[in-house]
């Protein structure tokens, strides 16, 4: 028994060095060598400044930008405090929140037709969802077009060119990356980069 305890201690130490430290450092080295941009968070820079990550959603409130889904990460879009609302399907607080979000959409986007797509009024699992559904993006076209004084067709065409289909044609869901779409909006001729 005492002998086994000594083995257990020595075994834990040697394997901690090999697998607890050696393995992650090996993978870090390989990843940094082979795919540094991805290993470092798929960061996007504009004018030499990091504006975010292609994978991490950020909040938008101006009608000049497409909005992301609501976020329950920290106080919203906190990329150090990921998580969902964890509100259950019979929780009054969830229904109140969704009703308020629906009302807000009718106010922000009065020209949009039909009911609000479910994705735009529900929080994601991470609170950092970088995507919205194509339906959720098309719903916002009238709002963005009006705020930017652009024809709706121009904005709609931009959305359609940003729809990413299912991976390999069948995996996952079609999505629109909100940050990339908004960067493309800003890059349209005659569009300034600030919303102030």
């Amino acid at each position: 028994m005492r002998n086994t305890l000594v083995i257990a201690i020595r075994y834990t130490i040697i394997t901690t060095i090999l697998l607890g430290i050696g393995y992650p450092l090996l993978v870090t080295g390989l990843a940094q060598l082979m795919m540094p941009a991805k290993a470092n968070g798929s960061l996007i820079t504009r004018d030499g400044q990091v504006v975010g990550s292609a994978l991490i959603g950020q909040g938008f409130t101006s009608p000049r930008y497409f909005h992301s889904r609501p976020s329950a990460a920290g106080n919203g879009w906190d990329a150090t405090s990921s998580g969902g609302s964890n509100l259950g399907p019979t929780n009054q607080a969830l229904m109140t929140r969704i009703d308020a979000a629906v009302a807000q959409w009718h106010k922000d986007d009065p020209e949009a037709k039909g009911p609000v797509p479910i994705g735009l009024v529900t929080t994601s699992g991470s609170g950092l969802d970088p995507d919205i559904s194509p339906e959720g993006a098309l719903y916002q076209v009238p709002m963005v077009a009006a705020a930017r004084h652009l024809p709706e067709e121009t904005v709609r065409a931009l959305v359609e060119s940003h729809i990413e289909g299912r991976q390999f044609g069948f995996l996952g869901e079609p999505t629109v990356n909100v940050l990339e779409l908004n960067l493309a909006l800003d890059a349209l001729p005659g569009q300034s980069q600030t919303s102030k």
Partner: protein
Amino acid sequence: MTANGWLQFIVYFVVLLVCVRPLGIYMAKVFEGKLHFLRPFERLIYRVSGVRSDEEMTWKEYTVAMLLFSFVSLILTYVFERLQHVLPWNPQHLPGVEAFLAWNTAASFTTNTNWQAYSNDVTMSYFTQMAGLAYHNFFSAAAGIAVAIALVRGVARREAKTIGNFWVDVTRTCLYVLVPLCIVFALVLVSQGVIQNLHPYTVAHTLEHQTQTIAQGPVASQEAIKELGTNGGGFFSANSAHPFENPTAFSNFIEMFLIFLIGGALTVTLGRMTGSPGHGWAIFACMSILFAAGFTVCYWAESQPSPVLHGVTQQASALQPGGNMEGKEARFGITDSSMFATITTDASCGAVNSMHDSYMPLGGMVPLINIMLGEIIFGGVGSGLYGMIIYVVLSVFIAGLMVGRTPEYLGKKIESYDVKMTMLYVLIFPLVILVLTAIGVLTHAGLSSLANNGPHGLTEILYAYVSTAGNNGSAFAGLNANTKFYNITTGFNMLTGRFLMMIPMLALAGNLARKKSVPPSPGTFPVNTPLFTVLLTSVILIVGALTFFPALSLGPILEHLLLHHGVLFS
């Protein structure tokens, strides 16, 4: 439910089916000691730790080695957590972890549960994540597999005193199976966008002139073993819903694949090592039936529109997934979320890519039932197989009673001692869960952590204890589990669910190994036929239903009925 959703499910299952056989055969070779290409590493580990690799152990020695190793490595992780502020790789200068939380987390990762009571991404340093938590991802998985292999040896051997050497089994599992697969799949995950660095957090300046601090870290290396070892502890608190852990539909597919890979392959290993491949496949078939049934119910429930929402479109179309999107990511939609939820609880993984707490009542009931059945549907690595063998022994016992003969299992007579160990395993699990849930719903300390009221609140508490006893680690995460009450009770529950169930298992292994083998007679109930698969499936469902149906009817089933009458709770 859409045609595309079913296509994704079928492709997943076919890929799994194709891969389990080669891996299962490879693992049988590893544990029979036929492979030596990593001998230098093996030797290094044995020499430094003083292991005599040629000596075999009795079941008692095996148990003692397993327990002492778990104990020592638990203590070391506790120390890492408490002292992380003075250890390297802590670019955010995080303080040491508070004592109760550190204890709960160390117990959680040692037992392959990976329940995470903390709900903040800035709790554990990179060093703690790598050398403490990811370390246990390897070794709790390896220990589970070792126990399963010991049990398989017990079945396969005749009149033997020993069941293998714990240190050798654990070392071989890591070196020959886990590490090579993890290096490959970690890099595949990086190719999808999973991060892998030791940098400080990035500060971004968003388009609307806000600052956003983006957490970084060595995620991919941990992500691979988290899924492959059915551990499930997320690097971030949103777990596999976080885009840095699971950025694309393909990374999601890989993660789901890794969760079932070893559990599926071990059925082949069982068939090989016992010389009865058909038996392995009969078990695989039973697992597949239960997997498909769970996915169907969960997928159906989550695709349904909520009857209490107005002014929104919940209809699935080519342009949106529709259904219940609260707590789900746009890139995964309903299909990949409900499939992940089913898989992670069929196995004892507990990683989540969507928030189970926000599932529809019957959708959230599926993960709950999966864990209640003992996580034997492919199951935790190792623990799934030995949990399933318990049901197999129970099935042949019941079949024996029906025809009035002494039951046999692969040539071994199943006698009173074996059935006692089996029943001990079956009874410990509901006993701790139901007693602790009862305490939870009767005390202020238990109720004050609830995020949702009504039947959903009962489900939250029940899920916490089912998940920790089952060493799953997923949660109805609205429940604030980082309180003294929950840190202590769930910590106790995890240790019970792991070790009190492994000990009868190893006792059974030792006892079976001692027995003579009897040749099959016309009265032997064959364990490699479809009839056996049906009996086994029925036994699992009956035992599970008898044990937990009352609790389920007061939780998710009642909530479902109330939801359709428009009853809400504030």
